[in-house]
């Protein structure tokens, strides 16, 4: 037998078992439903059929018994009961365990008995007790002819799909990464000799190569996308098991199952999600008695939502449980010496809640065998941050707890800002960069408050990490920082002072040798256009390792004393622009990669659509807020410069032309009303807000480019 047949069988069977779990849980909710019975039957039947073909007698026997029970349910001879549900779920577990044992056999797996020795009498007895048909003994299992039901075949859709080995896909991805680097290198070389490239026609060829590479990159990225539901396929089962072990009733609701992102990230999400869900069921949701006293329905609800937002995927896991007591967390933090009592009192509730992500921090009053040993949340955070994501928590005592996870769409290629410091080049993912500010000579300076470096940014005191100092550059060799990047990590903002900002480029993230990664502050490395290696800075780790986490709290508290305004956390920085028709509009600054000015002559037309060239790429531009006058052929006739807001839509850059950039303001997140005539429930449509006593349209860019 070929190993690949076995591999296919293993993959198919795991999918079948996940489907079986889902169907059984659906039956628990609605025992009268017929479709889940049929679907569960098909799943087990397929597994049984293949086992028989592969000579896997042990699996075949278990699957057959389960299948016979489902057949009885389907024909109405038996009726759904809790015992049947448990027996069938136990069947799925037994099959999984045997499959796992087969999987763990060394390759090639052929030759000798594939299945481990073992006895399945316990599960078979449970099935038999419910009325299942159990055949023979483990040693003596007669082959049965395939039952007629075997012809209930999979849909014709399968013909359009191809099963591809993930390693092959990864290899293609690596090659495309190489191609992107070679493209960058070529474009950089050509940019250095504009005349030569024009004369030889190389320039045009390079442009075409550039265009094709970008498309290829896009397409291959899409093939790696997987719906997020793959990461949570097992969660309904987990919720059920944990809930019944704690004697609770919990329902899991999912939304946005179709949201897609890189499969490597889907994988990375599995463990953290398991931790969080387990925690929520075990500790978040109260037992029936407590819920009754609180006037809540006996069944707890766990809601898992996924959606895409501005180049990243966001997940929210909300429970309607007891919530976390900020006061208890505050007490614990003081008791553990994390903060002193004085400072603890000043910490906002949000800052206090962040303590739960620290290793060993647990507020669970009792330790159960499911969770609550103080591990879990820190592991979940580590897992999410390891792939460039972030996690936060909000909780209302008595109402429930919500975890927010943000992940990049893809791990492989990401837009980054490159900076120069002490002769080396570092890259920082664009997603963390909120703003770029000049500092030093002739500009605002970095000051020192207590023993920390700070920067004043529009009435806000921003803690600053000086990259050169932090990297340990020689004091003499160190040149004063001229740029300050405002970075966001863990929902906080801080400044990173660098010698010089170079450029933005799409970088291919490459792993650093495992042994050098532990406890590191680098998210990986990349190869620049000139072939040199640049390290990728990890905004979270940088803040943590530079000792900023505590400092941020302290400074936020001080900033409140200095300027008694609304807390900075609630403010949203907005870019105020004049759209072409003279209307003031605002966009959230975080939705914009950067703002670039172009001469009118820079606008070209590709298939009737205006476009400009940026960083060697063709950037499609559209008028901001749908101004029709820019779509006309003569729109860019007048010689002048046009600000173009560059933002990302599904990983692709899009430019929006505006008449002028007016200002950057902090919006307090106050009331926003949709204009009359627009449906209230469209959150992405423009909303009217009041800025400096002017009515302004707040535009959400995701909708703008759609």
């Amino acid at each position, binding site marked *: 037998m070929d190993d690949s047949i076995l591999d296919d069988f293993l993959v198919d069977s795991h999918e079948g078992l996940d489907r079986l779990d889902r169907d059984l849980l659906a039956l628990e909710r609605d025992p009268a439903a017929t479709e889940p019975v049929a679907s569960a039957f098909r799943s087990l039947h397929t597994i049984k059929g293949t086992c028989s073909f592969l000579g896997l007698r042990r699996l075949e026997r278990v699957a057959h018994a389960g299948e016979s029970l489902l057949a009885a349910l389907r024909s109405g001879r038996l009726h759904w009961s809790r015992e049947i549900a448990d027996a069938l779920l136990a069947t799925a577990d037994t099959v999984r365990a045997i499959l796992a044992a087969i999987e763990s056999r060394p390759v090639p797996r052929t030759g000798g008995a594939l299945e481990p020795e073992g006895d399945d009498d316990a599960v078979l007895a449970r099935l038999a007790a419910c009325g299942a048909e159990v055949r023979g003994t483990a040693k003596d299992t007669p082959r049965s002819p395939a039952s007629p039901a075997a012809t209930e075949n999979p849909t014709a859709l399968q013909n359009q799909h191809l099963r591809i080995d993930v390693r092959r896909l990864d290899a293609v991805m*690596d090659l495309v*990464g*190489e191609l992107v*680097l070679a493209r960058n290198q070529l474009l950089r070389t050509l940019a250095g000799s504009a005349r030569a490239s024009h004369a030889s026609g190389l320039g045009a060829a390079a442009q075409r190569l550039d265009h094709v590479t970008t498309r290829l990159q896009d397409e291959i990225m899409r093939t790696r996308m997987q719906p997020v539901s793959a990461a949570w396929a097992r969660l309904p089962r987990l919720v059920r098991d944990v809930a019944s072990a704690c004697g609770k009733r919990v329902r899991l609701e999912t939304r946005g199952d179709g949201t897609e992102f890189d499969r490597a990230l889907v994988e990375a999400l599995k463990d953290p999600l398991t931790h969080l869900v387990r925690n929520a069921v075990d500790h978040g949701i109260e037992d029936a008695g407590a819920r009754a006293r609180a006037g809540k329905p006996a069944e707890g609800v766990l809601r898992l939502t996924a959606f895409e937002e501005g180049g990243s995927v966001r997940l929210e896991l909300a429970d309607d449980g007891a919530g976390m007591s900020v006061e208890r967390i505050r007490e614990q933090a003081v008791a553990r010496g994390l903060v002193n009592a004085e400072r603890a009192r000043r910490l906002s509730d949000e800052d206090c809640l962040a303590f739960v992500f620290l290793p060993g921090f647990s507020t669970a009053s009792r330790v159960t065998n499911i969770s609550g040993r103080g591990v879990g949340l820190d592991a979940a955070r580590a897992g999410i941050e390891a792939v460039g994501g972030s996690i936060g928590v909000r909780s209302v005592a008595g109402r429930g707890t919500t975890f927010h996870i943000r992940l990049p769409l893809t791990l492989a290629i990401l837009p980054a800002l490159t900076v120069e410091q002490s002769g*080396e080049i570092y890259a920082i993912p664009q997603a963390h960069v909120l703003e770029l500010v000049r500092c030093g000579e002739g500009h605002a300076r970095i*000051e*020192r*408050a*207590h*023993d*920390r470096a700070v920067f004043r940014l529009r009435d806000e*005191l921003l803690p600053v*990490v*000086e990259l050169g*100092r*932090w*990297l*340990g550059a020689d004091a003499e060799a160190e040149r004063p920082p001229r740029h300050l990047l405002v970075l966001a990590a863990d929902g906080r903002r801080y400044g990173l002072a660098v010698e010089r900002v170079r450029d933005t480029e799409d970088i291919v993230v*490459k*792993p*650093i*040798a*495992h*042994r*050098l990664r532990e406890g*590191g*502050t*680098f998210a*990986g*490395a990349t*190869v620049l256009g000139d*072939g*040199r*290696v*640049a*390290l990728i800075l990890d905004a979270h780790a940088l803040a943590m390792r*530079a*000792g900023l986490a505590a400092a941020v709290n302290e400074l936020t508290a*001080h900033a409140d004393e*200095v300027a008694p305004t609304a807390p900075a956390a609630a403010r949203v920085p907005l870019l105020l622009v004049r759209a072409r028709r003279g209307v003031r509009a605002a966009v959230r600054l975080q939705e914009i990669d950067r703002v670039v000015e172009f001469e009118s002559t820079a606008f070209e037309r590709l298939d009737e659509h205006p476009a400009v060239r940026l960083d060697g790429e063709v950037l499609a531009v559209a008028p901001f807020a749908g101004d029709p006058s820019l779509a006309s052929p003569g729109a860019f006739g007048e010689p002048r410069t046009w600000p173009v807001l560059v933002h990302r839509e599904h990983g692709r850059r899009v430019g929006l032309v505006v008449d002028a950039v007016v200002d950057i303001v902090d919006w307090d997140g106050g009331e926003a009303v949709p204009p009359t005539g627009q449906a209230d429930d469209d959150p992405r449509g423009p909303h009217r807000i009041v800025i400096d006593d002017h009515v302004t349209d707040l535009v959400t860019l995701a909708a703008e480019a759609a």
Partner: protein
Amino acid sequence: MTAPAIASGQAWCTFQLAGGDYGVELARVQEVLRAQPVTRLPHAPAAIAGLMNLRGRIVPVVDTRRVLGIDGARAGDVARRSGLVIVRSADGPVALLVDAIGDVRRAEDAAPSLPAAESPLVARTLALPGQLLVVLDLDRVLERAFAAPEVTPPSVTPTTTVTSPTRADGSRS
């Protein structure tokens, strides 16, 4: 104490470090290269010179002098060394930064080996015609390189700088 017998056909890739001849088993060597730009890796173990680009793959560069504790291994020296020996390790390829690449020497050339040196990093010392070759225990060398203590990061809280009060009345200082 004698080193294990040398299998015939065994070969070593040799290189120089501070005037001495050293070698590693040829079977473990993937390729040798002339010096390439090395990107410093802050906060890495002291014996890690940095990272290099090996045809698109990021490979750690080990400062071999530093691992062996050979005098004259100063950070500034890295640029002057001219050879890289790319070896295979369990964790992927690793580059050894050396002063210069030497010849490949085979077992036929080997005179009896000298008693094992006291350093655990040395597998054996061979007396070859016209050359004493120190054969390194590659796994131990790599182990030592990656395990070495990290260069202590400078404190981010220098206290000597003058504090600038954030309020006119200086109440914060």
